């Protein structure tokens, strides 16, 4: 068997305006979770709708379990795909209560094709419990909040036990204090039931926690499809760096196969994550907040221009002689006394595990 799900050369356009341009990615095995990350309005939802068969892409091929769903001359109707989609906006049937809404997907009738997968390992009540909406069972959609409706919609798409589960911003409207618990429970349900899932989100941490793999969608295409660890530490290009907005790029000169040189910071050692610079020796080096270390005794000192409190950490912004703004991460377990306009020392020699250069 090849990949569980394959998406090849997916193009989509509305009125000659490109929404998606040559989107490719695969899910290798059943039960894997893939998260699609990207800014809003970039076409993440369009990918889900194409996979579900709600829109016809202009080009491209979608294969699920060795069966072609969409290609130039084949198209399986959405009702015959056995794919569930939980929509971002409220898509509950307004004239049915929560329980009826959820069972709408389970009850089979004359007008409904049969689901081959059989029942899920969880009952409706189990799921309602896990997502903290048990008490809403008899309520109608207009009587519950947007966040609750979203969880009902989530349960409704899961209980169907589909071949592929698509979740569009499933936790977007949920209060922060519940979010972590629900994320845990969602991951547990998906993993235990072996549901292959694609989750669209703009929350990086949600994607990193839930996804076995993440795809970053920028500029109408998937620019990097990788494990969460690699996405964070080894971004493939400047666009990804900018999207995560985690560090700064500084000019540097390649000295040897493990050394770089920057005018302000001096020598920087480490392992190059990519080495193809087409013969250039002048490159842009990515400095992420945790790359540089604080050291009061160091001779290398810069001015503090800003200090951001992030709960478990501070991020200091330092200004170098050539006006670079460097972020430095410091644990917050003791109150740091460095104030703005004070000097801040950086530990030398500088060693960075992953040297990401462009």
């Amino acid at each position: 068997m090849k990949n569980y799900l394959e998406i090849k050369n997916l193009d989509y356009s509305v009125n000659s305006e490109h929404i998606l341009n040559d989107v490719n990615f695969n899910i290798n095995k059943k039960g894997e979770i893939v998260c699609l990350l990207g800014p809003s309005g970039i076409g993440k939802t369009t990918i889900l709708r194409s996979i579900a068969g709600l829109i016809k892409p202009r080009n491209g091929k979608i294969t699920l379990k060795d069966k072609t769903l969409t290609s130039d001359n084949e198209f399986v109707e959405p009702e015959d795909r056995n794919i569930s989609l939980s929509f971002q906006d409220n898509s509950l049937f307004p004239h049915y209560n929560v329980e009826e809404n959820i069972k709408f997907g389970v009850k089979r009738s004359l007008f409904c094709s049969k689901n081959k997968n059989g029942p899920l390992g969880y009952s409706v009540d189990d799921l309602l419990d896990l997502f903290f909406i048990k008490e809403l069972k008899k309520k109608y959609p207009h009587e519950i909040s947007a966040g609750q409706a979203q969880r009902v919609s989530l349960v409704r798409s899961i209980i169907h036990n589909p071949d592929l589960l698509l979740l569009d911003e499933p936790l977007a409207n949920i209060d922060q204090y519940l979010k972590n618990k629900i994320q845990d429970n969602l991951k547990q349900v998906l993993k235990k039931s072996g549901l292959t899932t694609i989750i669209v989100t703009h929350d990086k941490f949600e994607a990193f926690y839930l996804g076995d793999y993440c795809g970053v969608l920028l500029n109408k295409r998937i620019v990097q499809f990788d494990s969460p660890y690699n996405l964070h530490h080894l971004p493939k290009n400047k666009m990804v760096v900018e999207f995560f907005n985690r560090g700064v790029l500084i000019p540097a000169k390649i000295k040897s196969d493990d050394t770089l040189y920057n005018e302000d910071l001096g020598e920087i050692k480490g392992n190059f994550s990519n080495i193809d610079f087409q013969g250039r020796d002048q490159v842009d080096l990515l400095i992420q907040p945790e790359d540089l270390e604080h050291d009061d005794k160091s001779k290398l000192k810069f001015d503090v221009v800003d200090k951001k409190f992030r709960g478990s950490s501070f991020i200091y912004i330092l200004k170098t002689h050539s006006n670079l703004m460097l972020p430095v991460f410091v644990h917050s377990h003791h109150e740091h006394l460095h104030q703005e306009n004070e000097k801040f020392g950086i530990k030398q020699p500088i060693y960075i595990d992953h040297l990401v250069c462009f």
Partner: protein
Amino acid sequence: MQFYQNYFSKIKINFWLISSLLISSLICVPILIILSSFFTELSGYYKLLTETYLYTYVINTVILFIGVILFSFVFGVGIAYLVSFYIFPGSKFITWAIILSFAVPGYIYAYSLTAFFEYFGNLYSLLTFLFGEADYNKYMPRVDSMFGSILSISFSLFVYVYLITRVCFIYQSQNQIDAGRNMGFSKYQIFSKILIPAARPGIIAGLSLVAMETISDFGTVSFFNVQTLTTAIYDSWIFYDDLNTAYQLSFFLILFVFIFFSIEKFSRSRSQYNIPNKGYKTVEKTTLKGKQAFIASFFCFFIFFLSFVFPVSQMLFWVLKFPASFNLNEILTLSFNTSFLVIITTSILIFLSFLTNYGMRVTDSKLLSTVTNFSISGYAIPGIILSVTILTFASLLSNFFGNSFFKIIIIGTVFGMITAYCIRFYALAINGIKSGYEKLNKSIDDVSYLMGYTKFGTFIKVHVPFLKQNLVIIGMMVSIDILKELPITFILRPYNFDTFATKAYVFASQDMLEYAASPSLFLILFSSIFILFSRKFILKGF
């Protein structure tokens, strides 16, 4: 394969287009016939008419129109303002009770006015009962025909203005009013600078509807013998057997009607900015006290009395006074006829409008929505013109095919009547289902497909249960309209086939008002029941 798919999707779109195209082309018929009549030679009668009475007809139509507009404005906006912003004794009751006046068609109001003021009429009986025998006839005011028509039509139509204006008033946000106060506006300034301008599109839309119906009115003016364009059309067709003149007069009428139709459409679309959104805060009503409360109450109840209680009491009194005129068999037959028409028409309309609305939902076809927008303009064509042109069309078809098939199935048949009803009330059904569909998010269909339901399964399991209420309301509204409809039924009905409206009209035009009383009373009774059942929907601005 690709070719086949494209071909198939085209066929699908054409399938949805059928009903819209059907109705649209039927609507084109009257317009085309009327326009083409302008290129035929003018008849001698038309020339005579232009030299003699045409001017009078137009003037009469204009006077009638101005009078009705003035009264409808005062009654409609006045009551809407009072019940939307104030609490006074009976304000809650009046809010819905006032729409009962919608159950009394203008011509029946005309009968009651006449019955009340005529020699030895109901006023005479009342005075005799109160003060004993005397020659009251001498002092009895005569109802002027023009003034009588204006009153009758105003009382039966002002509810349009009330309904649309009220919706505009209640959807205003208290925040706007508070903002006005904050800027130091007085109560009067708030009314004139904030409330009225915001409700203006609604008021104009309501008045345009009233204007359209007024100048197309046939029953009231023909009963009072006021010569207007509609009666002139009828006379030149029936008495002078001059169809061309009828068409040329129709042209003027249709011109007027379409001006108001366009104003109404334009104003309605502008009044959309009143639809509430987030941050909207409902208006806080002020409780009136003392003299103010009395005046408000008195004004509303006076209008309610005049527009509903008065005509009902007149008809009731007459039925009781002449028990011989009440014929149970006749009432049963009329009820049966009316329900028959209602059921068939409603079923056809619901089928057609489901087809079109569902088509618009799944295809997103621009052509389809354009055609549909045109096809709902049928409600603007005056009933009398619609009927006359349908008859002409049947003859044209028969002549074209060289047999009398079309004449036989259309002229003087229930089929012909129902065709005309469908053209006229198509808008009602289309909009009734459309407003329901607008509340059903499109992604809901997608959810259903993804759960394995087919398109048809989604329609049956999701759409139909959701639109149940809309279906009932369409049925009610069509029933009220068919009950009250006069010219189409009167002209197109088969021999000896009557509804409450035609029965009452026939008796009234033969000066046998006491016999017109019981069909009129039952007409009002049934319409009132339907109005009461659908009042929640009607109050939303239908």
